[in-house]
């Protein structure tokens, strides 16, 4: 069975909500739409205070190519355009909408009927990319890179295959798993759309073999879609990293940054994104809602929600039985790469794949001990780096050393710190070093 070549760790899976069907979350009283829900330029507001909006009304338009519009996921009145502390921990501009009723824009097809490519033979690649762009679809796996950018390969590169990420290697999260079980046809049509958009005839959907039900169902369904192959993968973190996934499936290694997967001919998308693309193109539905797993060992009822974007996290926690008494940490995303939230009023964003609640004991890091040079971080690093060297070099501010040792290749997956017997906060230091080195490189390039 395939997996990526070097490194990797096996965190306890804890997929508590794997058997829980996707449940529609209740409408919030007030929805908050951050203008920074994607990588790139923030969206520009196109509504004003007091405007009536429907579900699907554009609130803010994309500002530039690498940007994405934001749509209202609720109907009601724009209360204010202000700022909110979002999942990043920073105050960022956001549009607040007071919810009244649930009125949808007429252009959106709300029926459940499956629309396949055969029903819409007139769609061209340009149409698909344009629709994806207009619907504000971004990478749903958490990176939130505007989707239409990936679907328009830069000049000089040619896509050869599409790689779809159904790996969900983060412990606890089950959003993609449930989506594959409940919307397999929609995902497969979405994949077919991606294939058409980038003009390739081959697509692989990588699924880790801790989801045998998803592998079975998707393989059965995929038989009807030419060119789509389901690839079962060995369970190993961080298989969901796009470079690792491309390597595991196609055997090709993406070179060091600034190279991206398209350089080896791969277009990587998440299953959630494929579903969003299906809805955007076939149902004319902009990105309004997403599947988010609310989970944790102390949570009464770990649940997979289909939540409207802009719903406050606190409301989802209430629906799961409330915030446990001994909560120590609330994480937006999975435990390996997610971000600890500073407060619970953070709204669901396009990239929110999960909400993990940890109790006080789990949340604390262990006592830091001296590095015993056991080299476990070196063998765990999926990028073939030397985390111990990068962490120490960064802590000592030896930027030249860490740059020479390819700190910019680090994907911040956390495998090194996860595996460290001395509980050393390696990634804290490596992140600091990486950001410094990136700034140095940018400054050098600017000088040239």
């Amino acid at each position: 069975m395939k997996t990526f070549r070097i490194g990797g760790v096996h965190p306890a899976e804890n997929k508590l909500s794997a058997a829980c069907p996707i449940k529609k979350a209740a409408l919030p009283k007030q929805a908050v739409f951050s203008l920074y829900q994607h990588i790139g330029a923030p969206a520009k507001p196109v509504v004003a205070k007091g405007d009536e909006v429907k579900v699907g009304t554009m609130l803010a338009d994309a500002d530039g190519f690498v940007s994405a519009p934001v749509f209202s996921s609720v109907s009601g009145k724009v209360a204010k355009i202000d700022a909110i502390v979002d999942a990043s921990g920073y105050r960022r501009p956001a549009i607040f909408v007071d919810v009244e009723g649930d009125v949808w824009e007429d252009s959106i097809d709300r029926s459940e009927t499956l629309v396949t490519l055969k029903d819409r033979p007139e769609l061209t690649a340009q149409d698909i990319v344009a629709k994806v762009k207009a619907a504000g679809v971004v990478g749903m796996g958490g990176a939130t890179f505007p989707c239409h950018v990936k679907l328009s390969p830069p000049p000089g590169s040619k896509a050869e295959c599409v790689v779809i990420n159904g790996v969900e290697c983060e412990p606890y999260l089950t959003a993609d798993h449930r989506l594959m079980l409940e919307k397999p046809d929609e995902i497969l049509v979405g994949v077919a759309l991606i294939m058409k958009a980038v003009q390739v005839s081959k697509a692989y959907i990588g699924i880790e073999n801790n989801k045998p039900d998803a592998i079975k169902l998707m393989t059965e369904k995929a038989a009807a879609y030419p060119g789509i192959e389901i690839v079962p993968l060995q369970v190993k973190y961080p298989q969901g990293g796009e470079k690792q996934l491309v390597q595991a499936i196609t055997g090709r290694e993406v070179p060091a940054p600034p190279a991206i997967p398209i350089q080896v001919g791969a277009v990587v998308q998440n299953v959630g994104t494929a579903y969003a693309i299906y809805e955007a193109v076939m149902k004319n539905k902009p990105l309004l809602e997403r599947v988010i797993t609310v989970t944790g060992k102390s949570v009464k009822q770990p649940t997979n929600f289909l939540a409207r974007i802009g719903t406050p996290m606190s409301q989802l926690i209430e629906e799961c039985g409330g915030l446990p008494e001994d909560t120590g940490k609330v994480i937006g995303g999975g435990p390996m790469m997610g971000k600890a939230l500073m407060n619970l009023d953070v709204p669901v964003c396009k990239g929110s794949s999960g909400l993990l609640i940890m109790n006080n004991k789990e949340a604390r890091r262990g006592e830091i001990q001296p590095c015993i040079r056991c080299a476990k971080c070196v063998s765990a690093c999926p990028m073939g780096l030397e985390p111990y060297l990068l962490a120490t070099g960064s802590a000592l501010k030896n930027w030249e050393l860490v740059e020479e040792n390819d700190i910019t290749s680090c994907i911040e997956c956390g495998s090194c710190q996860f595996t460290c017997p001395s509980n050393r906060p390696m990634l804290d230091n490596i992140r600091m070093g990486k950001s410094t080195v990136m700034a140095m490189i940018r400054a050098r390039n600017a000088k040239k």
Partner: protein
Amino acid sequence: MSLIWIAVIVLGAVGLIAAVVLFVASKKFAVEEDPRIAQISEVLPQANCGGCGYPGCSGFAGACVKAADAGSIEGMLCPVGGQPVMEKVASILGMEAAAATPKVAVVRCNGTCENRPRVVEFDGVRSCRVALMTGTGETACAFGCLGCGDCVNACQFGAIKINPQTGMPEVDENLCTACGACAKACPRKIIELRPKGPKGRRMVVKCVNRDKGVVANKVCKASCIGCGKCVKACPFEAITLANNLAYIDPEKCRLCRKCEEACPKGAIHAVNFPPRKPKTEAETPAQENKN
């Protein structure tokens, strides 16, 4: 006896050969250097703090010589040695040193534990830059001091320390050489080099929160809310308001301390003034009685 002689001769020969090799090498591989660089290096403090912007003291010395050859050493300043050192440097180069105002590092935040409640607990490397990556740090203030002491680590002179009571860095003005290392290390640019002012006295707005007044007020008791009362109170038009923040121009400020009284949040601090005369203290209760 002959054994001793052999030893002496062998050792002597080894020493002689080594001396010859060293002599030849020092002549042959000698790097020609402007003698003034060495002279300047000698008068510099040799702290190699990089405060001047050059890599160490010898780098600065080289830059001074280059600048002198180009015509002027204006703008070259060793922040550690200050005026006396620059005068010496100038005399070596046969020039006049430009007058420089003495400066000091100023921490523009007063978000002590008491003023600014900690809303979350930060767990990780005690570094401001790491804390910054988690969001706004332990407090809800998106601009204020993170209190992890990157400035303390950057200071070569032990002039900054974190006060354990307040959780804030404090500058020891006697030790501070205004090299600017702390200002560079601070990821939120809270520390700034400011003119020391006459007798070390100056007025400082100790806040950098650019949020609107309502937000700034919520996160910290001692924040500047940009109300502009100080601007009105200042008789010398030394205070300007930008980005919801007051700024006191040290050139124009005449140290009348009217702004300090006007500030409703106590964000303006008078530094190094003698304690207020009892008169003012007597006034305050009187005012209260009136109200």
